[in-house]
């Protein structure tokens, strides 16, 4: 094949393998020892630290940074993993610019926070060979976990630590959830999601069954019968529908395209349009747009129907997209599809409502990726819902006794890896208390 950026249609191999490899290299390469010491030295060891308060898993940031600064990054890693067993992945994918690093007092002082995420990676990378935790004496209690994503794995690990037996069911052929199938490839290169999963499972007491989707041969009733407790962390398998006039052969849900792209080892076989239009304003939209560009699309436009301030993707993510050559079009709502094109209606906010201005634009589009939100799919009917998600109270208790839920499929919290980890962990603690007769 001799495709390049100008080849019409949706084609693979627009860039050389070397170029693609370079494009998909680590977005934030690891700090070396000297960089880590300099970065750690900037931490003020704040009291009741704002960074820790901003972390959904409440990692003791000042302590772990000081442990790095005093030459014990392994102790730092323990401090991180005690709160967040997926601290390695979170170091890579957390939107820290809206969490710990936004809260850092040096962001206030100098507009330049301590590089918490990169320090977290520096520390956690040092303990990724051997699983640092061991199991308590076996309790003989059995817990089913649905979903091997961040919530399910965090829950399973904590339960295994407490001595319970865990079976994790996942619909996909591989575990990791969105870490494996969703997160932008350049944030977790070198198959980190699988490496982390393997490392996590080394604690023992956890069996994972892949290709087991809730609803097919696996029913909630059978899990309730076979296990003492069920934890649901299956994420959001559905997507919002977008009804547009006209037809276009190159329309696809961004999550499906990203999942396929993520599974390609070197990305040279992933087809991408010459002109790509991504509909949406969240992280998925940014990930789809940036990775289209990195694969060699000539033009990539992210069209978002509201204005910049309303965009779910952080300013950092928007800047990242812009730096990679993605054009972000605000106040542009998709209206109709045509042959190799999409028509967008310009919008504005008037009296709090989004209205069309009457102006329309047409963009060349060989490929249209829809990233307009994910939805819960296949939730068991016996569970009460809240805002389209499984309703939970406290540490993930659903409306049905014996069933907990956490992560994106459960109500409350942002749809972030780190939030899912916190919810899975807290549910595990609650489940443990329940199993041991303490709650």
């Amino acid at each position, binding site marked *: 094949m001799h495709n390049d950026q100008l080849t019409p249609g949706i084609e693979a191999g627009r860039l050389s393998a070397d170029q693609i490899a370079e494009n998909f290299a680590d977005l934030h390469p690891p700090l070396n020892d*000297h960089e880590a010491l300099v970065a750690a030295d900037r931490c003020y060891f704040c*009291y009741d630290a704002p960074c820790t308060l901003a972390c959904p898993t409440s990692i003791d940031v000042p*302590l772990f940074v*000081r442990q790095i600064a005093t030459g014990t990054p392994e102790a730092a890693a323990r*401090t991180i993993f005690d709160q967040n067993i997926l601290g390695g992945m979170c170091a890579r994918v957390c939107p820290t610019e809206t969490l710990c690093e936004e809260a850092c007092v040096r962001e206030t002082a100098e507009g330049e926070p301590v590089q918490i995420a990169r320090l977290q990676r520096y520390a956690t990378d040092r303990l990724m060979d051997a699983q640092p935790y061991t199991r308590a004496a076996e309790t003989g209690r059995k817990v089913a976990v649905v979903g091997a994503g961040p919530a399910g794995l965090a829950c399973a690990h904590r339960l295994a630590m407490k001595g319970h037996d865990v079976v994790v069911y996942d619909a996909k052929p591989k575990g990791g959830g969105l870490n494996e199938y969703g997160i932008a490839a350049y944030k977790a290169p070198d198959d980190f999601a699988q490496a982390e999963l393997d490392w996590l499972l080394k604690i023992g007491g956890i069996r994972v069954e892949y290709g087991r989707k809730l609803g097919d041969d696996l029913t909630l009733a059978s899990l309730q019968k076979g296990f003492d407790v069920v934890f649901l962390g299956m994420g959001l398998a559905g997507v919002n529908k977008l009804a547009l006039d006209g037809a276009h052969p190159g329309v696809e849900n961004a999550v499906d395209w990203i999942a396929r792209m993520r599974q390609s080892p070197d990305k040279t076989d992933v087809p991408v349009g010459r002109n790509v239009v991504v509909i949406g304003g969240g992280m998925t939209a940014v990930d789809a747009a940036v990775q289209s560009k990195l694969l060699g699309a000539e033009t990539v436009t992210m069209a978002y129907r509201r204005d910049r301030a309303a965009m779910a993707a952080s300013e950092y993510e928007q800047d990242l997209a812009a730096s990679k050559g993605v054009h972000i079009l605000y106040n542009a709502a998709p209206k109709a599809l045509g042959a190799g094109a999409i028509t967008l209606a310009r919008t504005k906010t008037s009296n709090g409502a989004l209205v069309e201005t009457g102006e329309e634009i047409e963009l060349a589009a060989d490929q249209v990726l829809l990233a307009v939100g994910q939805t819960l799919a296949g939730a068991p009917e016996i569970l009460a819902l809240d805002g389209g998600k499984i309703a939970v109270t406290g540490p993930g208790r659903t409306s049905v006794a014996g069933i907990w839920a956490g992560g994106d499929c459960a109500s409350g919290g942002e749809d972030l890896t780190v939030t899912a980890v916190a919810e899975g962990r807290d549910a595990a603690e609650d489940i443990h208390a329940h199993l041991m007769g303490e709650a």
Partner: protein
Amino acid sequence: MADLRSNFLGIKSPNPFWLASAPPTDKEYNVRRAYEAGWGGVVWKTLGEDGPPVVNVSGPRYGAIHGPDRRLLGLNNIELITDRPLEVNLREITSVKRDYPDRALVVSLMVPCEQEPWEKIIRRVEETGADGVELNFGCPHGMAERGMGSAVGQVPEYIEMVTRWVRNATRMPVIVKLTPNVTNILAPAEAAMRGGADAVSLINTINSITSVDIDTFAPEPTIDGWGAHGGYCGPAVKPIALNMVAEIARHAATAKLPISGIGGVTTWRDAVEFMMLGASNVQVCTAAMTYGFKIVQEMISGLEQYMDEKGFSSLDEIVGRAVPNVKDWNELNLNYVTKAVIDQDKCIQCGRCYAACEDTSHQAIAMSEDRVFTVKDDECVACNLCVNVCPVEECITMKELPLGAVDERTGRKVEPYLNWPQHPNNTPDNCGWDPDPAEPVQ
């Protein structure tokens, strides 16, 4: 897993990290929070005799030396002993000790240099259930002008006398806290021993003026336009403290005297250093005052990791381990030759090593037109200054020349151990060192 439990004079604590007698240990509220944060022990801020309490200044009590980024390197204070009533302190000590029986609680004392007040306060402290007493012969400001603190600590005869009064008055462990404001720390340490002290703790603070306000022409901290010298502490004083601890630990007469190490302990590593030079435990103040009680968590996890990595199971394996390696200069091996080596991969080409060596040392670093810095082995005396001024860790290291290798600077082969007393240049005309060869230490 390493066992951090400490037993100092029979006083047990879950770890060797104690808070020193100072503002952080002035009251029950603080001490309870310190224990909750993980501190193994506390030396309660110095109590004075019954009666009207001392009065502190109500202007600034502290002055500071900052490094880059306002890192607090040294702190000086002009605060006196506790200014709260004796009865209140004793009541609180009793209450805290009752609630935290597993933590060490030692009470620091300073009363006038007469037998009766010492005997009197000792009896009161015994009633609290505290684990021991520390005699404050160290504070260099305020109390010293009243014949207490370092005014006692600077006169070995007084140290011995007061220690003996206390020794004879109690069966509690007696720790004597030493002032560094002396010319030779061994004299006060030996005096404490003669008086019957179970241990010494050191160092107390160092006489100091941290800075002068160049607009108001007054030393800082400034009280109504004037200032007084205060006691200096914090990371800046650690080297002085380490030496004094080591001097006591390696001096035959005091070698068996237990030591509680104090002076700029800020990280677990500092603590290990003090312990290796002979301290059985450490006392911390400035680090807690700078970063809060939580800092002990890093000390605990760091010490644990270090001990695990070294395969040490108890603190006994650390305490004193470096003492045999502390020598007088004339025992050092004059045939030991090293050369600086610059790692070009790590070098960021700042040229600090060059400036230091070219301007102030031995002109042993070459600088090329494209800013590559290399060591001239035929000039390098291995002074280590380039290592010390280099901003990058491990970029410049010292490489030892093996026996038989030729030192390009001298043209001579590296030979076995030879110290100054053994050296041919050491002649009677050559200024006075004992020409008898000392026993080689190797």
